[in-house]
């Protein structure tokens, strides 16, 4: 099930996960059960995923993240939008990120 993200909302990593960057690799380690469908596996982010993850600081709206990444990276705005929405939807579905308190759809 794809969970829809909202460009006007601010998202932040869930307090129920710990994101560890080890030798350049971002590894998501769940703390509570029911997160990310992880049992005997590690959930890691690739380079694209890591670049987007680092923007989810709980301050910028998703739309602002897309704009700022479009300035920094050489991909087209459409590709960046697709990547940001694609990853954040997946992370939201797995409860790895949440809306900041007060955010409404």
């Amino acid at each position: 099930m794809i969970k829809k993200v909202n460009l006007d909302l601010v998202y932040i990593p869930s307090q129920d996960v710990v994101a560890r960057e080890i030798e350049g690799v971002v590894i998501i380690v769940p703390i509570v059960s029911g997160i990310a469908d992880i049992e005997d596996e590690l959930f890691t982010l690739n380079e694209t995923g890591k670049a987007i993850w680092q923007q989810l600081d709980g301050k910028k709206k998703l739309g602002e993240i897309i704009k700022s990444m479009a300035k920094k990276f050489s991909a087209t705005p459409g590709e960046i939008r697709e990547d940001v929405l694609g990853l954040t939807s997946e992370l939201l579905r797995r409860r790895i990120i949440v809306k900041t308190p007060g955010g409404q759809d």
Partner: protein
Amino acid sequence: MKTKSYSTKCPVQQVTIWNGKKPSLLHLDMELTERCNNNCVHCYINLPAADLDARRNELSIFEIKKILHEASSLGCLDVCFTGGEPLLRDDFEEIYFFARRIGLRVMIVTNSTLITPSLTRLFNRIPPLRKIEVSVYGMDRESYESVSRVSGSFDAFQAGINLLLEHHVPFVARAALFPIGKEKLREFEAWASRIPWMDTPYAPITSPYLRCRGEQDARNADIKKMRLPPQQLLAVESRRTAEYIRGLRLFCANFCRIPGSMLFNCGAGMGKGNVDAYGNLQLCLILRHPDTVYSLKDGTIADALVNFFPRIRELQASDPLYLERCAQCFLRSLCEQCPAVSWLETRKIDGWLEYFCEFTHAQARFIGLLNEGELSWQVIDWKERVKNLLPVLSDENGRMLEVGGK
């Protein structure tokens, strides 16, 4: 940024998620205590649960958290809490929660007698992410308690197992059944096969180690009595004969070589270590020679890994018998002889170990690597023998392929 796949799930053992440089610390074992509520006859480490001196000298919760924090900062993903019996610590839940909170996956080695409903609820809410390992000393009260030497421990063990099963907390079981026998192992394996999370069988403990701090000679004598003579031990270990032979042949094909005088032929201290209950970092779970341990009360894990452990790993043997035999033995990797076991047995780290040498020779004869009466360190054509261990096949074009690996 053209890729549409942003994340990967990979098996926990796959260290190649770090493409190139691995973290300096991959795994840490921590003995939370040497005390145990059982008194197992074969155990190399247990102290009485009520040993106040031992308890007083154990690391504080503050010191444990500091070590775990540093381990995490060095890239460690996995910590194993062991002992003694780690659940004996009153602050176990706090230690466990802290480890998980900083993003460590936790394995626990326990006898399960102290598993409580509260603990299983904690493991459900905050799963360890590694399977708990439960040591099993017998399949009935008489055999269990003849090993544990604590009345009521079998019932407590069963109660703990049942709690883990009822609350779906993943665990695996490891047999430490003494005296060792095929029938006992078959009974254990039949029971263990019904545990939902036992996807691979865990090798039973068949050659118990001597006391880890060299104390209590009487206990060492008892432990040695439990060791089967090499041929009998081989009969037990090879009970699944075809699988055993194949496994041994594959191992020898991959790892047989003449080691020379270098003492360390294993991965001890390379990206991993064991912290004892008092804050000493060891290259492995067993090696406690005073010159080979590093005090974390005076230093850091990073310093131990970068400076201290590499110096220890460079040590060379000087014992004449070791140099004559072990240093020239192409079966050295198969043998239990290592600096750690050597120290337990002889109080030196380069001792030749008769019992383990005899058993290794028995194994080698069993798979056709040695003839009767041959001594491994005198074999000249070992490379040829090892090469001939595995069958050679040809592909559809008639090219010869060697069957090896996994």
